[in-house]
């Protein structure tokens, strides 16, 4: 019998549905298996993930679970989901085929290593929103991921589109994949051995990924975790037993190391206060030690759309910045202070405040026009500035009803611009409205 641990070029592999694929190249290798490029007789190409079955406790059960995931279908387009398993023969390795990575995506690792830079803040926030959105759809489908880490994502640096790979450990809620995850990304209760991975521990891993995305460093690695060697003992201490956020408000003993994490304070301060607060909640001692009061996917979603609508350009140096709605913001580049004249205050969503600064070129999305919309890509309004006044241009498909503080009302059709006056209220239709608040 041939040794199928590793496949060789031109080797044929039979799929469960009877079709055959031919191995044409090797694409990568990890701890769980190897990914090959394969081709159908029709010349259509796919990737084949081929498992090191020696690591699987119960290969048949693993195979059946993959089959069920295939039958149930991908939670969203962001997932490179298994399409078809190879034929099962007891005791022999198997794998599954999936789509090949499209062009234009770079591994999250490359961003962390600063080999690739996002093209704009909007692309960067889109990437975060796409990750949150993908995991929300996964959880909504009753799955949890269990092994969420930096190796699972690829991001398009131009538009922030995200692809999630390595979906083999995805299991229905309540089941265990037998995978604990990667220590750096695991919830502390999993590291401590108190709990097995589930949806709630996924939420923690998600916060770690988002922190690393925006700040570029690990949230629990500061000046007191810098041991000469990382053994299991220290790993448990840093990520499980004695974890402390590097920007913990009360306890500064694990603040960023001044040379190792030199740019962490600047990256952190570049984020508006509402994002910093959400991270402080995600990595509070309450969250780290008791697993309580963690922001959920929907909290992150609302915080991140708010972040997206805070993107403006510094009027002094032209750099992209995130502008606070109601407080001065220091431009990271020219260090000058910038303050919005006021902001639009929307109804809160899932107990998250929704605001957008009134500042030239700030954009509102379909999300802001419709209280049930989750569309953070379609621009629906933009803030315009003329000497002495601000306006909000209606780029949506609906008419707006504007009410002034003295009770007069106007209608603004798509394409028209409304002058923004203190305390006036704009009803965007579809259950969404905002009030103009002037900053002191």
């Amino acid at each position: 019998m041939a040794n199928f641990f590793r496949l060789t070029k031109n080797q044929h592999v039979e799929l469960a549905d009877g079709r055959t694929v031919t191995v044409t190249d090797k694409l990568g290798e990890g701890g769980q298996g190897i990914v090959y490029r394969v081709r159908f007789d029709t010349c259509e190409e796919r990737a084949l993930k081929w498992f090191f079955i020696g690591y699987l406790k119960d290969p048949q059960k693993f195979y059946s679970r993959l089959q069920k995931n295939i039958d149930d279908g991908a939670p969203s387009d962001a997932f490179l989901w298994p399409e078809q398993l190879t034929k099962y023969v007891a005791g022999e390795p198997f794998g599954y085929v999936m789509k090949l990575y499209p062009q234009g995506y770079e591994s999250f690792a490359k961003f962390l290593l600063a080999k690739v830079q996002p093209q704009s803040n909007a692309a960067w926030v889109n990437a975060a929103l796409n990750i949150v959105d993908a995991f929300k759809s996964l959880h909504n489908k009753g799955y949890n991921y269990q092994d969420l880490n930096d190796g699972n994502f690829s991001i398009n640096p131009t538009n922030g589109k995200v692809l999630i790979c390595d979906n083999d450990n995805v299991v229905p809620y309540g089941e265990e994949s037998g995978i604990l995850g990667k220590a750096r990304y695991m919830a502390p209760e999993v590291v401590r051995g108190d709990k097995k991975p589930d949806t709630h521990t996924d939420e923690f891993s998600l916060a770690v990924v988002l922190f690393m995305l925006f700040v570029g460093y690990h949230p629990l690695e500061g000046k007191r975790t810098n041991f000469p060697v990382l053994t299991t003992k220290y790993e448990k201490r840093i990520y499980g037993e004695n974890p402390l956020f590097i920007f913990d408000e009360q306890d500064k003993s694990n603040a960023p190391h001044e040379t190792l994490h030199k740019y962490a304070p600047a990256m952190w301060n570049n984020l508006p206060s509402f994002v910093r607060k959400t991270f402080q909640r995600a990595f509070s001692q309450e969250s780290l030690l008791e697993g309580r009061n963690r922001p959920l996917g929907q909290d992150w979603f609302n915080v991140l759309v708010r972040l997206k609508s805070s993107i403006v350009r510094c009027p002094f140096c032209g750099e992209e910045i995130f502008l606070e709605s109601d407080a001065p913001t220091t431009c990271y580049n020219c260090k000058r202070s910038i303050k919005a004249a006021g902001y639009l205050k929307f109804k809160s969503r899932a107990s998250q405040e929704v605001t957008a600064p009134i500042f030239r070129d700030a954009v509102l999305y379909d999300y802001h026009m419709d209280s049930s919309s989750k569309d953070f890509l379609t621009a629906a309004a933009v803030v315009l500035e003329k000497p002495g006044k601000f306006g909000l241009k209606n780029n949506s498909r609906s008419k707006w009803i504007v009410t002034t503080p003295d009770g007069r009302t106007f209608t603004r059709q798509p394409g028209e611009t409304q002058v923004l006056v203190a305390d006036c209220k704009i009803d965007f239709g579809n259950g969404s409205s905002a009030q103009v608040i002037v900053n002191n």
Partner: protein
Amino acid sequence: MVMKRPEIPRKMCPVIFLLDTSGSMDGAPLGAVNRAIENVLPELISMNNDNPDNEIKVAVMTFDYDAKWIVGETELLSPDDVSKSWRDLKATGYTSMGAAFRALNDKLSVSHGFMQRASGSVAPVLFLLSDGEPTDDYKAGLQILQQNNWYKIAVRVAVGYGEANYDILREFTGNEGTVLHTNDTDELKNTIRFVAVTSSRVASQGSSVSPDDPNANPDDNTQTVANALQNQGGNLNAKLDPEDDF
């Protein structure tokens, strides 16, 4: 323009080769070693390009009349730098394995060796290759090395060729699952590559795989690699065409 993102600090994953260049290695065996190292370096570079946790750094020691650091005398180098400056090794002299172990012990230190790294390190890979009986007191050297804490947590692997003494290699790794032996020069190249690449990958990438045995010592990195060599192994007896060997 947007704010430029910083590079995340990585821990060092030292990959240290101890290569027997005694006279008996001359010719085809040393040729195989040279080709193998040439093939391993690009794989290590590619691992580094995609690993935000740890960065592989390389040291190479040869031992014949005495132990000599070809790479790593002052500091460990990136596989990229090693690749650029790599010169084929030459074989001559005895098999001073005891001297090799003592020289390794001297370097496996943060204060006076090459293990200093601001962001810290993970367990190193110690790769030993030999083709014969040590000609010095290997035991005294090994005993000193075995007291070294880096040695204790290290991934220890060994490849024996020809007349290599299996028991001594086994004594060095402390695990029979990480000692591989061959009598064939073609196979030697593939074996070195397989062992070096697999152990470097396991050491540098860590693993998301939970141990089968919950009572296993999680810091027994040599055992983790023994499992990997078993579970990820190709057919090492086949004479693989390098073009097909992906």
